[in-house]
């Protein structure tokens, strides 16, 4: 790759996420190797893969929680290494529910997170989603007393603060009741359809991938083993065994 084209990588504002040559791990254990990933605004990418294959590690690298051993990440055209504040300003990261501060109330979490992101106010869309989740009665309770579903709702609300260009969610539908899950799917779809943002969702739910995602990527042993674009997913929807069989074949092939 020439210097000029390398300099141009990831700097496009329309590109919500650009990952190049990412390598990451814990101590000497390498979890991710040579990951390249692109995501445009208006796209919903589902990240698939067996347990322990590096999905959460990849999301943690994108969220700036884990420093990669090599490689570069651009979020909304800003380099996470060179301009972390700028990159994080356009990132909506859904933290794991167990990482939420148990000794603060839901309202305090929202307020602190919004202030930490430098927002002048909490957006009306987030407040509307909060109402749609029927989360208002939980606002003044300590997070310690929340159920898994309530924690999940709070984590999602935090990730959507400040109209981010990239929303990163890890198993965000786990523990959500069907009504709330539907509300969230429709909300994310609406945001994505308006080209306002891109969604990167790590999930095991194939139904969600087939019905809501625009693209899917399979992570196996720390590498992206296979990607499906919109046409490929459309074709899989038409098959009786669909994505399940395709995943099994891809896993066996690798």
């Amino acid at each position, binding site marked *: 790759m020439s210097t000029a084209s390398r300099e141009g990588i990831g700097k496009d504002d329309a590109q919500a996420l650009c990952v190049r040559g990412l*390598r990451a791990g814990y101590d000497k254990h390498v979890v991710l190797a040579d990951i390249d990933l692109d995501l445009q605004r208006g796209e919903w990418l589902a990240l698939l893969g067996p347990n322990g294959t590096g999905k959460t590690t990849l999301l943690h690298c994108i*969220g*700036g*929680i884990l*420093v*990669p*051993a*090599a*490689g570069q990440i651009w979020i909304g055209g800003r380099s*996470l*290494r*060179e*301009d*972390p*504040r*700028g*990159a*994080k*300003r356009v*990132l909506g*990261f859904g*933290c794991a529910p167990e*990482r*939420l*501060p*148990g*000794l*603060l*109330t839901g*309202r*305090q979490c*929202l*307020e*602190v*997170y*919004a*202030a*930490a*992101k*430098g*927002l*002048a*106010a*909490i957006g009306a869309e987030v*407040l509307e989603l909060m109402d749609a989740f029927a989360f208002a009665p939980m*606002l*003044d*309770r*300590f997070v*310690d*007393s929340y159920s898994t579903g309530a924690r999940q709702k709070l984590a999602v609300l935090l990730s959507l603060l400040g109209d981010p260009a990239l929303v990163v969610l890890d198993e965000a539908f786990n523990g959500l009741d069907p009504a709330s899950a539907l509300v969230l799917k429709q909300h994310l779809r609406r945001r994505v359809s308006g080209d306002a943002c891109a969604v990167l969702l790590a999930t095991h739910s194939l139904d969600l991938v087939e019905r809501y995602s625009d693209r899917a990527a399979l992570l196996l042993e720390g590498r992206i083993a296979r990607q499906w674009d919109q046409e490929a997913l459309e074709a899989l929807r038409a098959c009786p065994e669909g994505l399940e069989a395709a995943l099994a074949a891809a896993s066996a092939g690798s």
Partner: protein
Amino acid sequence: MQELRALPPGLARSLASRRPALLAASLGSCNALRRSPARTGSIAALLIGACAAVLGFPAIGAVLAWFAAHGVLTGTISAGLFALPLMRRKSRLLASTSASWLAALPVSAPLSPRALGALLRLLPLLALAGLAWAGGRIEAAAAAHLIGAAALGALAGVAVGAIVSRALGLGAPGSQYASLRRARARWAEAPSLRPLSYWPVARGRIFSRPKSLARVALLVALCLPLGTSGELALVVLAACLAAYGLVLLSLAAARVAFEAARWLAPTGVDRRRFALALEWRALLKQMVGCLLMVLLARLIGLPWAFRLGIPVCAAILLASWASTAVCCALACRRAGLGAAIRGP
């Protein structure tokens, strides 16, 4: 089902339909005693030993008679002992009821009689007074006075505890340690980092829970040389507990700095804003605590404690601020907050 058959059929049916939790707890206790004969034997030996001690030591009779003669003091102590736990009892009962494996049964155990179950704690006193009376250690009138004063005090304590609990909202759902604050009216229109400061304070309360303070109190009491005056012992104990509380608050602030930095890592919040917002309330509490200690030493007329207290408090505050600042810096660095992330 042997235990159920041993009960009168009407009582067993009534317990199963109206008080299943009580029945399950009783059956569980019976099973535990049957499974472990050694444990049952040791409990029996302990009870027999306690009875022998009551009957064998005249001093126990004298102590009970003294408490019977000072009915107001006995009642006040009893009221205090019953009021304090009851302030949080309601929320704990609600939590345990909702988490119980019997929660789905169509039985609603009324809460107030269950809260009054706290009064069952009077049973050991009743047994002690009865035994002392039976052994001839105290007179019947003294035993009656003792039980009456303790029972009246307990009732007053239960009432006061319930009223205070309702008035102060101590039974509010949520954490047992963090106190619920009123939300700011403009929390959504002008969000602030200020609520972050409640986190280390709440963690500090968890660290300095009574169980942890009791160990320190015991250690300090054991370290006091024989012949120390009661006044001096109390001052030393209070100062040690207060200093321990301050140190625990520093430890809490340090631990929360790492947790909060990790939570806020994806936001890119500025390091200084983060550190200030997180730690100011804990540091202010420490400063107020130190000032109170020094002032109290002055007020109770202990010039040596006053002279010693100022440098000790200053040293504690300085060490605390320095350690907190270092921990915040380390936490921010580890979480990659506010600065360019280190490359490979």
